[in-house]
């Protein structure tokens, strides 16, 4: 099964073992929520749960689990 990810925000899961630091998620994010700080993915707390990073990530490294409203 998939390797365990790191929780970087309330509902964003980032798996450092899979991430290749290609920055596709950072470019594609419409609210500029994601950022690399010392090679660690950081969430700036602006996530609107549009799931674009989950859909575009080529390496299954970032996953957003939408909260129930």
């Amino acid at each position: 099964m998939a390797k365990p990810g790191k929780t970087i925000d309330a509902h964003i899961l980032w798996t450092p073992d899979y991430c290749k630091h290609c920055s596709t998620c950072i470019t594609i994010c419409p609210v500029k929520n994601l950022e690399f700080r010392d090679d660690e993915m950081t969430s700036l707390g602006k996530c609107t749960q549009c799931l674009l990073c989950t859909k575009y990530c080529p390496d299954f490294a970032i996953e957003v689990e939408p909260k129930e409203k």
Partner: protein
Amino acid sequence: MNFKDYIKWDRMPTTWCPGCAIGTVFKQTAFALAELRLSPEEMTVVSGIGCSGRAAGYFNVDSVHSTHGRALPVAEGIKRANPRLKVVVFSGDGDLVGIGGNHLLHAARRDVDLAVICINNATYGMTGGQMAPTTPAGAKTLTSPHGSAYAPINIQGIVTSNRRHWFARASTFHIVHLQKAIREAVEWPGFAFIEVMGFCIENCGRRLGFLSGHEMLIKLKTDFKLKAGPEGPLGEFELGVVKNDGQIS
């Protein structure tokens, strides 16, 4: 079914370069298969040689990593032997159109029930970025340092020259259209060909002045537009579906 059931997690991460377009297509294929609720026992993935050929090993279904250019004959053999199986061919432009161009002609003519996903990065990526039949005129590659002198091959023309055909062009930026096209291609009872416009950052993009994979992804957004209006052949920079179920119109 969840898309995670179609992936061999012990083989992750993939061998593809950071930001590679094949990863996005691989993921969208897994999403599409999960939406179709195909059980892994009733499908097979066949791939050729090249970076995209690696994908066959990452799908958690029965798969064949065939020889160079021969993905379509292998897939046709599987389909003829066991017609219940859904056969998906996952390969690149150098394999399907370059080396295996003759097989593409005849598989399309015989209208074999296959779903072919062709990732078109306009170069031979794995071997170092040589000029491929799909390289646009004027593009610099390893073997055409002053720009390619020839016009690229027209894949749409090859596939749609048969009366019964299904052809789609998608891009790795327009993922909703890509996922819809993959779903429709797997369900289409005949030869379905998807040309996915991708990119190769390591061996093609850096000679064209791109610095990272996501720059090329944004270039796809500015270059390609979804075709609006009536059905008909797609223009050079248009995405959409061209199909005919064999009826004389």
